[in-house]
């Protein structure tokens, strides 16, 4: 009772239970007078009392761990040396400082017990063939996964298996999208169904899309819809072309549609690139407009802005956008980095 009064809360209990060393302490030791003049009944009574008293007075207490209160704190650093659960998380490679932003997460993490609450999840992820480092990253990103019921997680994995995802695919999905397992089977089914219906995908295409970009599946449906609208209606690509772009560059559908439109407008109106060429290389649309403008202006100045594959001195859009500045200046523009840097300072 004494201990509970000091440390209320689960965290404190685990703290005590884990490092228990017995120290005998006798408190309130009194000299009990033994009087021979008292009658027998009284003697018996006092004997009993003495026995009771002695039992009450001798405590086996652990004073090592009796400490000042754990004061309210802004970070885990003040707790970690005393808390076994935090130490276990530290061993798992979790970045504990990232939890501090959210108070609810911090409280939740402290209320856990490694043996009862966390160990089964570690085993579960081990069975999924997920490496130690990624496990730490998954918990860092989504600590609430530990709140889920382990049977539910097995069901969610089984759902993927029954949808013909191979174990390697499942490992990749869980690794690159830590929030995947927090969604219920119904939600995931509805999300996959949305993509299949919205873009008229085949089963294999849905699977390859899921594996190449697992984050897209659980992304906000609204953003995907708005992006599809922008690409289909505002830019004027056909449904088939939109589908092709989705499979080639799924990240395009996770971006802000205003930025994509800006890039598209520059590509189509300033650089005179046809829609067919953009369909072949949808990666260009994910490029920032500023970067594209800088590079295009540089090529224009050198009179190398030739994007027609049928004519000589052709510059492919993907190499224009994806290569780093040094490679772009020497290989695409056939100039030097110094000249390109000077050019960047002049616009």
């Amino acid at each position, binding site marked *: 009772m004494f201990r509970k009064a000091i440390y209320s809360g689960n965290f404190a209990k685990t703290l005590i239970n884990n490092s228990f*060393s*017995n*120290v*005998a302490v006798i408190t309130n030791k009194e000299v009990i007078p033994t009087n021979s003049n008292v009658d027998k009944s009284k003697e018996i009574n006092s004997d009993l009392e003495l026995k009771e008293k002695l039992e009450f007075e001798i405590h086996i207490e652990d*004073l*090592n761990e009796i400490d000042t209160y754990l004061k309210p704190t802004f*970070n*885990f*650093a*003040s707790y*970690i*040396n005393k808390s076994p659960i*935090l*130490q276990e998380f*530290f061993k798992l*490679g*979790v*970045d*504990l*400082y990232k939890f501090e932003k959210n108070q609810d997460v911090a409280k939740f993490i402290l209320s856990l017990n490694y043996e009862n609450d966390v160990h089964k999840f570690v085993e579960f992820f081990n069975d999924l063939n997920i490496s130690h480092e990624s496990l730490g990253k998954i918990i860092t990103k989504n600590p609430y996964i530990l709140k889920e019921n382990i049977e539910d997680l097995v069901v969610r994995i089984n759902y993927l298996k029954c949808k013909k995802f191979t174990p390697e695919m499942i490992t990749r999905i869980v690794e690159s999208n830590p929030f995947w397992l927090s969604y219920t089977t119904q939600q995931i089914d509805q999300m996959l169904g949305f993509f299949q219906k919205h873009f008229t995908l085949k089963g294999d295409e849905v699977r390859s899309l899921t594996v190449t970009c697992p984050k897209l599946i659980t992304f906000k449906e609204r953003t995907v819809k708005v992006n599809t609208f922008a690409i289909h209606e505002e830019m004027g690509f056909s449904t088939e072309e939109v589908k092709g772009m989705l499979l080639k560059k799924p990240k395009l559908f996770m971006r802000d549609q205003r930025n994509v439109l800006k890039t598209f407008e520059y590509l189509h109106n300033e650089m005179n690139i046809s829609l067919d060429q953009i369909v072949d290389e949808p990666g260009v649309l994910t490029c920032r407009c*500023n970067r594209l403008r800088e590079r295009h202006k540089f090529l224009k100045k050198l009179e190398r802005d030739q994007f027609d594959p049928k004519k000589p001195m052709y510059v492919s859009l993907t190499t224009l956008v994806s290569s780093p*500045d040094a490679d772009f200046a020497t290989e695409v523009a056939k100039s030097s980095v110094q000249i390109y*840097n000077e050019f*960047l*300072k*002049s*616009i």
Partner: protein
Amino acid sequence: MLVKEAPVIWNLLKGIVCVYKPAEITCENLRKALLAKICADLNNMECRSISERVVIEGNPLEKLTVNVVPNLADHPAVVGPRYLPDELPASWSNYLGWNTCGILLFGLREGTRTAKYLRENRPMRAYKLKGTLGKATDNGLASGKVVEKSTWKHVTKSHMEKLLSSIQSSHQKQMFQLCGVDLQSQTAYDLAVQGPIRPANSKVPLLYGIKCIEFTPPNFVIEVHCINENESYLTTFIHEIGTKLHSTAHCTALQCVRHSCFTLEDALLKKHFTLQNVLTNMEKCSIKLEENKDLLYQKSASLTSINTE
């Protein structure tokens, strides 16, 4: 980099950095990018090692063991990275608007004080303003809505130069008015002999030299030397030039090409933000400031010549 310890580099990080701000990005965002890169680089170096703590374990009635164990509370995974952008003070000495590109000076740590002195001493800045005749927009920039169109064929370079020199002389006259002296007096003459004067007030924009350096109608480029300017002042200036030439004009680009003794050559591009480059740049800037001490501690109110080499 030869030095591997982060604390050593941290101690060196004080002074002025000269960076190149591209258009369509705010000074705030550029500052964030610079600090994030510096801190990331510092964290990748050899940071302070984890401290140790003494643990006394065992039964107090028997033998106790004393151990020295690493203090987990000091581990970067628990307390967070050693260097945070929020803990690195940085401030700019001249503000450039969203549409302006060019030289921007940042003061880091103790350099913030230098940045403050630089700002309060109001050094001269040179701008290249690109404009186009024939169209006027609602915000004076190319991004705005076109509100007026006009002919521009009648404008020649001599027209432009005549106008610019008259604007320049009116600004020079204004300088003496701000000083509170009559133009025809002896005191005005004594002041004029010393060279151009700075305004005492930080609110009045002043143009010292205006020159048309390129004229390919309808496009033109003007170089302006000024104090206390801001983006909107410069765009309205281009608009005014358009109306005074009996046409209309809007601004297509604003570039700060010189800030006191700092030129474009010294400026660091955003892609070159690394710890090594920042340190080299800082060293160059401190040498320049050492050569031009007047920039920080002025002796007289008149402008002095600056050594840009």
